């Protein structure tokens, strides 16, 4: 970020929620005169530090970015050489692909899903993709992209985003100015981008503009997700998401495609790109899971691994719980009664549980879901509730992985209080006790549990070095840890718990400690990469796809934007970063410009033939609850590929009843559901009360004065909170009509020092078509002054 010339901050508020990132942006500003652009539904702390604030109605990111994409192409403001060599712009798409009135080809209305086999590239008889390097063929990606986004002209865009024309043009001119090879621009986003029914496509739209401008893989560039928790990167790396195994391997499911190891390998291994190694990573993972019980005869224990039968995302689980299908639950540092969408329904669903275990630092709202204080009737709830007190971050040791994929070791500062135990202790003892329960049993249920390898020492606490060795992976013959995932095998001779982290604990014999996440050399090794500080996966590379920082011949695009470059005398890539590329692959040889090594064909996707469930290009659709009924881009209002939940307690609100757009967000002073901060008095006194932010215009229309109590109501429920009347909110002009938007923090609940009503009572059960992330950030409501 320090090396950027322009930061477009959209769907995030780093000044409030990622303050350290603002430190780097301030340096970019001081040292390079970088511009900061803040695009957001409301004027935030970040806006206060930006060169320009542009208003955007919540849920219209794709319209806004589509406008930028169109502006860049129409005005020739794209990095042509980068686009030609590093993206799939030249690839020809088959005639099956079509887009008409908001719907891509291959749509099944009954299923609300697409068959993406109609989106593929043209190939020759040998399967090679056909290209038009001149980018002029009407079926090439570039021309299809141009055509798709030609509909996103400025006037249509701003008619629904509510942005002023002047502001939109200034953002477009400034940001698209980074198409100059001497410049780079970065996009920083957070949950304001992702928590929508088209959240994944929102991010895709950012990726497309960044690829057009040549801003990926270069210092000061990138599409930067600002992680909302110190270890959310680590959590996803280690398969916190239901559809993945560690290292982003697809979790086996009950489909025919995954019926056995061979079928899985065939289905999940692309030809070309680094994912060709999928079998090596998977078999090594199975060896880590099942040890000696994983043999070539039993498919390395593949059948032991549970096969998913359905979608297990957050909303799906609570819907199933509401319907009585789920009988027990652990929440581990999670507080769905505050943080879950449609939280009243989720709290009600918990009443169907036979047992419930809350692992947390405090008695959270979720742990107390059955109490009178929570509004429940304890006499009608049979759930047995267990609470396991967990350690705070400073009472345990281990690693966290940050947004830059740095795995950093943290040491224990103080002893835990009373009965509190670390997460590692809890999971270690659970595993050992469950294994003991199944000892000696002889049945198919017991077998996978008995087969599970759990060798983390004999102590009450697991040995962290043994866990680290398992993650890094080791050679089963020598016992030495591997130096890289490149040596992992699919023959059962290597074990590896998470291939992307291979190399952080390199070449260590049994008992030998070599944990690179503990490194603390703070000398800048060039371009602020600090290669000897901690460890960044993969292989300590700090900027992914950094081959793209150099031109096709291997020279840096700009002298002050150097990352790696080709040194012909050494026949090697050298520079300030670890090459994210074959170190000796000559730029002039075959594959020498395939900068995007994880992609099957080595090029970044302007057009996503197989990555998305809801279309190869982003397309604007309205939120599930929208203030307008006539989407100017097509006749389709809602993303046609989202699953609609139509069960009880999840009504959809209409604009006639609920005319005001609402969104929610975090404050600097509170963290997530507030269980850590609302129990801390110094932080609580800074933000003691739940509030609703609104414009002076809306307050006047509704007869609301500063500090009044107001009631906000959606189709799911209502809450009461203080009014915050502010100039930082302004009504939007959408299709010529005034649309009001309110905003609120989602941190509050009924437990702790600072309490307040729960914002998520208002939000619906509806999620993104790809990830099922809930649409927290755009819904409809009404607001009125509370009766005093």
């Amino acid at each position: 970020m320090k090396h950027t010339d322009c930061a477009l901050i959209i769907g995030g508020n780093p000044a409030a929620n990622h303050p350290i990132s603002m430190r780097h942006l301030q340096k970019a500003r001081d040292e390079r005169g970088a511009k900061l652009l803040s695009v957001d539904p409301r004027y935030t702390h970040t806006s206060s530090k930006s060169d320009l604030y542009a208003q955007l109605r919540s849920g219209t990111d794709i319209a806004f970015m589509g406008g930028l994409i169109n502006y860049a192409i129409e005005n020739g403001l794209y990095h042509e050489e980068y686009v030609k060599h590093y993206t799939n712009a030249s690839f020809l798409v088959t005639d099956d692909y079509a887009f008409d009135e908001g719907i891509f080809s291959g749509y099944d209305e009954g299923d609300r899903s697409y068959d993406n086999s109609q989106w593929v590239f043209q190939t020759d008889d040998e399967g090679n993709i056909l290209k038009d390097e001149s980018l002029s063929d009407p079926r090439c990606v570039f021309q299809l992209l141009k055509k798709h986004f030609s509909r996103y002209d400025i006037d249509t865009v701003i008619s629904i985003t509510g942005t002023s024309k002047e502001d939109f043009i200034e953002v477009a001119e400034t940001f698209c100015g980074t198409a100059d090879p001497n410049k780079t621009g970065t996009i920083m986003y957070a949950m304001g981008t992702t928590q929508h029914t088209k959240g994944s496509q929102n991010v895709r739209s950012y990726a497309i503009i960044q690829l057009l401008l040549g801003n990926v893989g270069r210092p000061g560039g990138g599409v930067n997700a600002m992680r909302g928790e110190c270890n959310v990167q680590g959590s996803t790396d280690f398969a916190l998401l239901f559809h993945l195994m560690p290292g982003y391997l697809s979790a086996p499911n009950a489909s025919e495609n995954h019926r056995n190891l061979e079928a899985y390998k065939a289905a999940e291994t692309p030809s070309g790109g680094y994912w060709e190694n999928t079998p090596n990573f998977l078999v090594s993972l199975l060896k880590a899971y099942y040890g000696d019980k994983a043999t070539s005869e039993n498919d390395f224990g593949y059948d032991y691994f549970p096969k998913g039968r359905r979608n297990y995302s957050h909303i799906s689980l609570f819907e199933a719980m509401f319907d009585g299908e789920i009988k027990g639950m652990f929440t581990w540092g999670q507080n769905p009664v505050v943080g879950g969408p449609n939280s009243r329904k989720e709290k009600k669903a918990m009443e169907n549980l036979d047992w419930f275990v809350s692992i947390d630092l405090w008695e959270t709202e979720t742990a107390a879901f059955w109490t009178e204080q929570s509004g429940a009737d304890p006499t009608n709830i049979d759930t047995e509730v267990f609470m396991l007190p967990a350690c705070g971050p400073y009472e345990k040791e281990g690693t966290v992985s940050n947004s830059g994929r740095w795995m950093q070791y943290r040491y224990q500062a103080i002893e835990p209080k009373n009965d509190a135990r670390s997460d590692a202790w809890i999971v270690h003892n659970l595993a050992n006790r469950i294994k003991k329960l199944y000892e000696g049993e002889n049945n198919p249920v017991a077998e996978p549990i008995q087969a599970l390898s759990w060798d983390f020492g004999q102590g009450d606490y697991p040995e962290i070095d043994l866990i680290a060795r398992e993650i890094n992976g080791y050679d089963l013959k020598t016992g030495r840890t591997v130096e890289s995932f490149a040596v992992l095998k699919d023959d059962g001779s290597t074990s590896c718990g998470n291939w992307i982290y291979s190399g952080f604990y390199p070449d260590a014999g049994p008992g030998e400690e070599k944990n690179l996440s503990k490194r603390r050399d703070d000398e800048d090794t060039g371009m602020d990469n600090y290669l000897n500080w901690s460890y960044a996966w993969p292989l300590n590379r700090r900027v992914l796809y950094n081959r793209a920082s150099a031109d096709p011949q291997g020279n840096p695009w700009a002298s002050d934007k150097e990352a790696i470059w080709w040194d012909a005398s050494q026949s090697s890539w050298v520079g300030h970063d670890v090459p994210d590329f074959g170190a000796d692959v000559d730029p002039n040889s075959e594959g020498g410009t395939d900068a995007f090594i994880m992609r099957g064909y080595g090029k970044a996707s302007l057009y996503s033939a197989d990555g998305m469930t809801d279309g190869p290009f982003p397309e604007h659709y309205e939120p599930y609850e929208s203030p307008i009924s006539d989407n100017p881009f097509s006749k389709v209002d809602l993303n046609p590929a989202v699953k609609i939940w139509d069960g009880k307690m999840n009504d959809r609100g209409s604009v006639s009843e609920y005319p005001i757009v609402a969104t929610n967000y975090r404050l600097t002073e509170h963290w997530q559901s507030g269980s850590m901060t609302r129990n801390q008095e110094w932080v609580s006194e800074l933000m003691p009360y739940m509030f609703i932010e609104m414009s002076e215009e809306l307050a006047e229309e509704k007869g609301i004065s500063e500090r009044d109590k107001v009631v906000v109501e959606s189709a799911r429920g209502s809450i009461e909170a203080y009014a915050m009347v502010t100039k930082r909110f302004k009504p939007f002009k959408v299709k010529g009509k005034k649309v009001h938007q309110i905003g609120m923090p989602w941190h509050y609940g009924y437990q702790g020092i600072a309490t307040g009503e729960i914002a998520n009572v208002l939000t619906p059960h509806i999620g993104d078509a790809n990830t099922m992330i809930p649409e927290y950030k755009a819904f409809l409501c009404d607001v009125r002054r509370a009766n005093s």
Partner: protein
Amino acid sequence: MTTYSKLVDVTVCTGCRACMVACKNWNDLPVETQAYSGGYQSHEKPTGKTWNVLQMKEHETANGGFEWLYRHSACYHCADAACEKVCPEGAITYGEFGSVDIDQEACVGCSYCVYNCPFDIVELADYVTEDGDVRQRAQKCTLCEDRLQEGLQPSCVDTCPLDAIVFGEREEMLKLAEERLEKAKQFFPNAQIYNPPGVGGTKMFYVLADKPSVYGLPENPEVPTSAVLWKDIAQPAGKALLGVTMMGVLTGYVTNKLFNKGEHHEEGGEVDESKHG
């Protein structure tokens, strides 16, 4: 002799308020939860229990622009401090790192400093004496003199992620302020340094984004004339003539007559009725 200063560049502050929590944490100050303010700002101003407050203001500029202004507000540590002049007990002194210190054991809680602070900073708050009694004593930011003695930075400085608050030798801080001002002017045409000469300059001084009056600050605060007369002329003379004990008795009487609250606010500070952010 080397002197030191704390520079607060509000133009790069992001309003995160880590300075407020760090201060309470290091100094182990009690909470003082306020009624709902109507905005993000938590406390109106610094108090005896809350030694720094991040003040926020929604400001519409003359040309129709909008700013959300922040200001870390705490003791100014005036070079020529009114509080030091009026203290009848000699409990207020100048520390070696630029701080204005109040000796809690020597303070008798008379409030003269409270009434005479040109910036309305110092206040009485509970203090547990060496004998274990709870007494009302004048309290405020100490500039973390205890940390400075150990070679550390003040806790607000240490925690500020944007280096909006910095501490160092005064000459360097003055130079840095000029550099920061040049940069700030690109975004804030009215930006200026606030280091009022009427109180001899302050050891906590600002780069402001706009005129002092926008922040509700006095344009040119001064040490009240009565305080100067008392401290620099009447008190030394009186002590010489009457002896220290007798002077102490008189002190209470005379200072009560001389000083009354309010006389120090009329030096250009606008009364600001607009709400804070």
